[in-house]
C-alpha cells in the first residue's frame, strides 16, 4: 500500500469529483462555476495523478519492490551471504550503496536515459513475470557495463591506487576489460543455497 497521505488525497479528489458531478448543473452556467469545474475536474485530478505516478516511479526503484517478485528473492538473499568477495553482498553489507535502492543503484545505467532504460527493462520484467514466463536462468540483457562501477569508484583513491587496478585502469575506462573479469562473483547463489549468511550484530 502506498502512504496514507496519498490515499487520503486520492479519496478527497474522488469526493470532489462526486460533488462537482452533483453540482454540474449550477456550476456549468456561469464563469466562476466553470473555473471551479476546471480546477476540480482537470487541474486537481491531473496534479494527483502526477503525484501518484511520481511516487510510484520512486517506489519502483526500491529494493523491496524488485524483490516483491518471487523469482528475484534468491538474488535478494544473496545480499546477505557471508562472502567478502561477492559484489552484491559486499556493497549491501558495507553500505557502499543505499540499502533502500540497492538493486537500482547497481543495475541502472548512469547515462542520460539510464532511468528510462531501467524502467523499460522493468516493464520487460513485468511482462516476463505475468505473461511470457520467467526464463530458467535469470541473466542480464547485456554485459554489465564498467561505467556503472566507475560511476562511484571512478576517482576513489582505493580504486585508483589499487595494485591490481593500476595496470588495467585505461582498459577499464575504455571498457575493453570488464571489472567482472576479476570480480567474478556477483550474486553468490551457491552460498544462498547453502544458507551461509552474515548476520549483523
Amino acid at each position, binding site marked *: *500500500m*502506498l502512504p496514507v497521505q*496519498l*490515499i487520503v488525497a*486520492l*479519496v478527497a*479528489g*474522488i469526493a470532489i*469529483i*462526486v460533488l*462537482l*458531478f452533483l453540482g*454540474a*448543473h449550477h*456550476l*456549468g*452556467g456561469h464563469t466562476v462555476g*466553470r473555473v471551479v*469545474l*476546471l480546477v476540480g*475536474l*482537470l487541474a486537481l*485530478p*491531473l496534479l*494527483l*495523478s502526477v503525484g*501518484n*505516478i511520481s511516487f*510510484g516511479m520512486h*517506489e*519502483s526503484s526500491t529494493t523491496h*519492490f524488485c524483490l*516483491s*517478485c518471487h523469482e528475484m528473492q534468491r538474488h535478494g538473499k544473496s545480499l546477505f551471504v557471508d562472502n567478502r568477495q561477492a559484489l552484491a553482498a559486499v556493497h549491501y553489507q558495507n553500505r557502499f550503496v543505499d540499502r533502500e535502492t540497492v538493486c537500482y543503484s547497481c543495475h541502472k545505467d548512469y547515462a542520460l536515459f539510464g532511468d528510462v532504460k531501467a524502467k523499460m527493462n*522493468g*516493464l520487460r*520484467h*513485468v511482462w516476463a*513475470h*505475468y505473461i511470457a514466463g520467467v526464463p530458467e536462468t535469470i541473466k542480464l540483457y547485456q554485459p554489465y557495463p564498467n561505467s556503472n562501477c566507475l560511476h562511484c569508484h571512478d576517482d576513489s583513491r582505493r580504486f585508483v591506487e589499487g595494485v591490481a587496478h593500476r595496470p588495467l585502469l585505461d582498459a577499464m575506462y575504455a571498457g575493453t576489460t570488464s571489472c567482472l573479469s576479476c570480480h567474478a562473483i556477483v550474486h553468490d547463489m551457491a552460498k544462498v543455497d547453502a544458507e551461509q549468511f552474515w548476520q549483523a550484530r
Partner: protein
Amino acid sequence: MADSTEKLTRKIRRAAVVGGLGLVVQLAAALHWTPITFILSAAVGAPLVLAGGVLFLAAVWRNMRDKGAV
C-alpha cells in the same frame, strides 16, 4: 437555452465520470500496490483522468462556441 444548459450539464457529468474513474483506478492500485497495479495505474488511471479533463474542456468550448462567445 435550457436545452443547451442541459446538454452542457450532461457532458460535464460524463467528463466527471471518466475522470473520477481514473482516480478510482489509481486509488485501487495504491491500496493494492504491486508492479502490475502500478502499471495499470499509470497506463489506465492517468489517461482516464486526462480524458476526463479533455472532455470537460471540449464540452465548455462547444457550449461557448454555440453561444457565439468564442
